């Protein structure tokens, strides 16, 4: 699969993105990396330009909920991107524990999965999408 990997708008963290690129490439995926601090507009432009099979957003600075919500809402406003699988991983807030209400709002906005830091879940999510691509 072709995966667009991106940091969120206010998040400068880089090691998560360096690591995820290697991890995803080792799963056999092609990775387009947008780098850290990617605003929603850049994400939309990247998706339209590269036509990825899935988007992986990674946020660790404690603004994952706000930034992730803005990014997903903006993506879903674009008709061509309405069905693009989007997964958000990392930390949602500054509290250090998962807020289920935040997860619910992200899901309502069109985020297909909110994964925390569980890489097995990311692997499984992408594997399930990859299987769907193969015609039966």
């Amino acid at each position, binding site marked *: 699969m072709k995966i667009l990997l991106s940091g969120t708008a206010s*998040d400068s963290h880089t090691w998560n993105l*360096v690591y995820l690129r290697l991890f995803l490439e080792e799963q056999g995926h092609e990775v387009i990396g947008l780098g*850290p*601090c*990617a605003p929603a507009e850049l994400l939309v432009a990247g998706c339209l330009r590269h036509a990825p099979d899935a988007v992986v957003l990674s946020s660790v600075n*404690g603004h994952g909920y706000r930034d992730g919500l803005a990014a997903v809402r903006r993506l879903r406003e674009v008709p061509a991107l309405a069905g693009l699988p989007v997964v958000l991983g990392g930390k949602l807030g500054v509290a250090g524990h998962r807020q289920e209400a935040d997860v619910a709002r992200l899901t309502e906005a069109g985020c297909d999965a909110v994964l925390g830091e569980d890489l097995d879940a990311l692997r499984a999510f992408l594997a399930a999408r990859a299987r769907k691509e193969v015609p039966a």
Partner: protein
Amino acid sequence: MTAPAALPGFGGFVAASMTAGRLVVQPRMGFGDPGRMRAGLARTRAATAHTAGTLTVDSYTRVGDLAAARAAVAEGSRLNGYPIAAHPPATTRAVLDGLFDADFPVQVRHGSARPLAIVRALTAAGLDATEGGPVSYCLPYGRTPLRESVTAWARACELLATTARPGAVPHLESFGGCLLGQLCPPGLLVAVSVLECLFFARFGLRSVSLSYAQQTDPAQDEEALRALHRLAAEFLPDDVDRHVVLYTYMGVYPRTAQGATRLLEASARLAVRSGAGRLIVKTTAEAHRIPTVEENVRALETAAAAAALAGPPPPDPTDEGDGEVYREARTLIETVLGLHPDLSRALPAAFARGLLDVPFCLHPDNAGRSAGFVDPRGRLRWARTGAMPIRPDTAADAAPPTSAGLLAALHHVADRYDSPRHRDGGDHDRPQATPLTV
């Protein structure tokens, strides 16, 4: 130190503390709510330690999205720092009132490649100390083009140097000793710190600090800090006050309380024996979330106690500062200075030609051809140096990094300090021999 003891402001406070033989310890601390921010500063001031205060700015303000910062304040959302440009100056003055004075300087920490709004806000609130740099707050921290960051930082330096209140000596710390926090060999960290402080001096600052972040090997770190002292003396003008500031490990932090505490104590001892004037601490919560005020106070007191037990600082911290790190850093500095007499042109030119190249940095203006690795003895070395005028280590593994190899290298320090063997005693500053390459 070249500064007179009576110099006012942040630099003068650190100079006076060094004369008195006391390490200044400082937290990273920022809360969106002014009441919590004030409480944090009050607790920092009251800690059993020689402290300076910190206002860490939130990430929306850092990336220049002041509208998002204001919206979060209006909604009462929790931010990851103090939105200094979203609150009116009177609010920040009230946060500082009765706390910020000659005995308790306060520094604004942020991470912005376009710091003008932050510098305006901090000077409007009566503050005059901050940190960052045209390279260190641009390349590893976002996507602002380097040329724009350099221009913005030049203006911010001039603004800070000229608009502080009468009698003040504004202070600016380079973040160049951190870059991505880990897997960057010390020669480049030292070079960027010196180059940024030289940049600050050229744009009007008369008091600066040079940073270095604790890495994987205590002996290599000590060598790097001595090289930093020596190069600062060689390259910075004599009339510019300066000190060295050490950051407790900025990479993946130990998860256990014991491991985290040991690493912090090792950094405090390193600061003392290498002549640093100030230490910015990490807490036992670092691996898990943004620390509380309580955790920060405990970290400040732990670091201060470890520093007090470390014995006297070296009589001359530039001694033995002419080893491998010194030579590498000096070559990088001289190469950059030789490109153009104006540093605001030399720095972007150096990156454009790959003469400076930050390992693993994803910024479009970084060449991205260099890589660092942890050698079997635990020292940080160059696997690849790209077009930089320095040589890679001959023992480097030429194989491309794997995700598992990268993860192991990133966790090298945390794993060492979390391991029961390390906790059981012995010399905690000595690394165990763990063969790792990236």
